């Protein structure tokens, strides 16, 4: 089997117990994806699979044969940084930086979900398409915990950068 990680085909693990997160971090040495709880509660391990956000700690690497996986190391950069990465610096959307890669990958996946019209708990009209109000972004990013308290900056950075056409 092989996985396509940031455009490169790489071998899967020999041990089927290995999570996608541990495969990234310990075998491939892509440590930008973080382990915060290893049980799907904190979002620090969020990566994109074929453009959708998943929690890589709850995913077995062997399940992702042939899938395209994008980690923080593989985002499309404009120059050195993806625009959202630049906005995270500009809006001080981080302190310790440990939840940060997960927040950024999650936000990119979240905007794609909104563009597909997927409603959230705070959506008032399930059929009307999604307008990413501040509350919508907050709700949709609530699976990514931050303990330093960079929440305001994170939402500001997302609003300033991502998918302006579906922002309120």
């Amino acid at each position, binding site marked *: 089997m092989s996985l396509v990680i940031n455009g490169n085909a790489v071998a899967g693990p020999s*041990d089927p117990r290995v999570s996608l997160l541990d495969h990234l971090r310990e075998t491939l040495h892509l440590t*930008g994806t*973080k382990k915060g*709880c290893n049980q799907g509660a904190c979002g620090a391990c969020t990566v994109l699979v074929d453009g959708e956000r998943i929690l890589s700690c709850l995913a077995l690497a062997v399940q992702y044969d042939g899938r395209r996986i994008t980690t923080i190391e593989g985002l499309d950069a404009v120059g050195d940084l993806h625009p959202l990465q630049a906005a995270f610096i500009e809006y001080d959307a*981080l302190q310790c930086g440990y939840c940060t890669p997960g927040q950024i990958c999650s936000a990119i996946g979240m905007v794609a979900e909104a563009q597909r019209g997927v409603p959230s708990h705070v959506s008032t009209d399930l059929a009307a398409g999604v307008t990413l109000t501040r509350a919508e972004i907050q709700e949709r990013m609530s699976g990514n915990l931050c303990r*330093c308290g*960079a*929440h305001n*900056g994170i939402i500001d950075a997302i609003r300033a950068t991502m998918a302006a056409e579906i922002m309120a």
Partner: protein
Amino acid sequence: MSIVDTAKQAAQGLVQGAMTKLVPLAPDSWIPGGRPDPLIDRKHGLIGTPLSRRDGAVKVKGEARFAAEFRHEGMVYAALAHAAIPRGRITEIDSAAAEAAPGVVLVMTHRNAPRMNKPGVFGSSPTAVGSADLSILQDDRVHWNGQPIACVLAETQEQADHAASLLHFSYAAEPSTTSLDEAKANGIEQGVFMGQPLLNRIGDAEAALAAAPHVVDRRYRTPRHNHNAIEPHAATILWVDGELVIHDASQMVTAQAQTIGAVFDLEPGQVTLTSPYVGGGFGCKGLWDHQIIGAAAAKLAGRPVRMTLSREGVYRVVGGRTLTEQRVAIGASADGAFDTIIHSGLSIMTPHNNMPEPFILGTRPAYACPNITLQVEVARMNMLANTFMRAPGEAVGTFALESAIDELAVDLGLDPVALRIRNEPDKDPTSGLPFSSRHIVDAWRSGAERFGWAARGAPGERRDGEWQVGMGCATGTYPYYRMPGAQARITLIREGKAVRAKIEVAAAEMGMGTATTTAIVGAERLALSMDRIEVGYGDASIPGAIMAGGSQQTAAIGAAIIAAHNALVAELLKLAGNDSPLAGLSADDVGSEDGGLAKLDDPDRRESYASILARAQRDSITVTEAASPPLEQLHWSMHSHSAIFCEVRVNAVTGETRVSRILGSFDCGRILNPKTARSQFRGGIIMGLGLALMEETQFDERNGRVMNPSLAEYHIPVHLDVPEIDVIWTDNPDPHTPMGAHGIGEIGITGVAAAVANAIYNATGKRIRDLPITLDKLL
């Protein structure tokens, strides 16, 4: 013994009665900060300019390497097994299946662990930072439910985790104390914090209470908390030729290296401890059992070890904030003047540590009052050692005090802001010392104006559909601390006609923005641009010891840079010699200006650093100097302050509380970097929202086990819980601190729980005195 030597001892926690009497009486000019730092008057420099954090790019790219992300050839992975009883002995260990499991390299228990000294418990010496006065994996004793009792090393984490699950232990349980009632029945002691009893008595507070025309006398409770930094504790550990190398996550690199070194009989130079990035700390990123077990296992196996605690492991191995039961009684006259304040109560610690949650600290300087009794007592329980967590004392103490003041305001029919201003002291009411800088009334007035406090209604008056709406406020407070031991090493490196500088401090960067503010302060002090300043930190090989604790790091670094800069100026003048325009001048005559030295009152007499170094045929110059002893804390009463305003919406049907608005109005000296400072304030406030509404480490009183050891079951604020947080500050420099600044890492959390509770009262008419204010308490 000179006054300075005496003072150094005093500052190192051995505060003698004579010293505490002497320093307050000394002339200001003898005291550090007696003459204002010249940087306070420099209004157009980098200080106060919002700058992005220096480590932003490596963090957003995922390139910042944390403790569990270092690799070494032949490295193995560790997994821990934890005791399942609160107290007793291990009678049998069945490790055969674990040892036979695939990939296992070592199963280490007390039976085969190397002999190690007991780590020095915090406070037992200036550098000891052990979490408890207990040896680690040296005998069959169990001291708490969850104590690590075995370590498995294997080729992969999966193999280590599986093998650890195959270990079986038999125990002989012994009597234990795991309930609060039992702990109290066993006996209550006076709490002692940093060598000082947590006790103040001024006048006769109880008699005054009995005589007071208006009285509130209430009990408040706060539960255990865990820090829950998103990075779990981890260390990558190896031995190289008998010396120990630890890539750690640490708030106190130097002291931690020294304490671990003593466990293994190593000299200070034989432990290399680095901690370039720390994924959140809040008090928890210190020395716990896992680093010592990891180092022992690495020694026994002869292999480098990756020791990462699971999230559950963090709850079992790393202590949190302990519970408190507090009484606040205030007696006042009809005009609101306080006659008496009693703030007393109990916190819980273990038989093996000394950390009473010092919830009276914020009350000491708070309000003018002729009769004051403040006391923290402790009882002991068999549990994991509790520890410092963000604003230890003030975070939960302000909940009780500032709730009680709100209750008194209701009783008196006075506005709670006016009531606080009514009782503003002109000097510290418990120490009698003058305040170094206190502009809390300004903070209250500007905050009330900006928040729209005047629109607050009577309790239960405002309603929006099924939502009850209310406003509350509270004072926050945290001391200015500066601990002894800080040093700075400054190196100027000549590059053609310019220089660059390296400033090294043994400090920790957990996201506070320390690396950035150190560069700002260094650039201003040296009169170089920011891009010519490199900052080194997070490495125990750097001289001096600086702890990221007590919100003191900025002041400690600032004072060390002042000292090192003075030494640098003196050294450069020596190098400049007789051919320099500066010839004949003494260090007091010159200062740094525009990339060089200049005579203070005649700036045309100047020479650049590069020119001085070039003429002396030097490529670089390095100076290392220690900060002045922090006597200012004994000479003035030094505190930061805040006024917190909060608006909540409480659902009348479900009891759910949503915080719709919150404002922090801060008086914290001069703000060095508004961008990172705002983040610090907001971060503290958000942790305060958790404290108010959802956070609790649930402790099973039957067996002493933490019942919610996960981020799924211990609730912290998430994005949807966090409104846009408004932050303003007075920006008044404290004339007696380096740069006029105060540390700001902890003040943010203080006052928040009371502001929320008071807003909930205003919304619903219900007074909740038991945190967290979950919806069941409002139904």
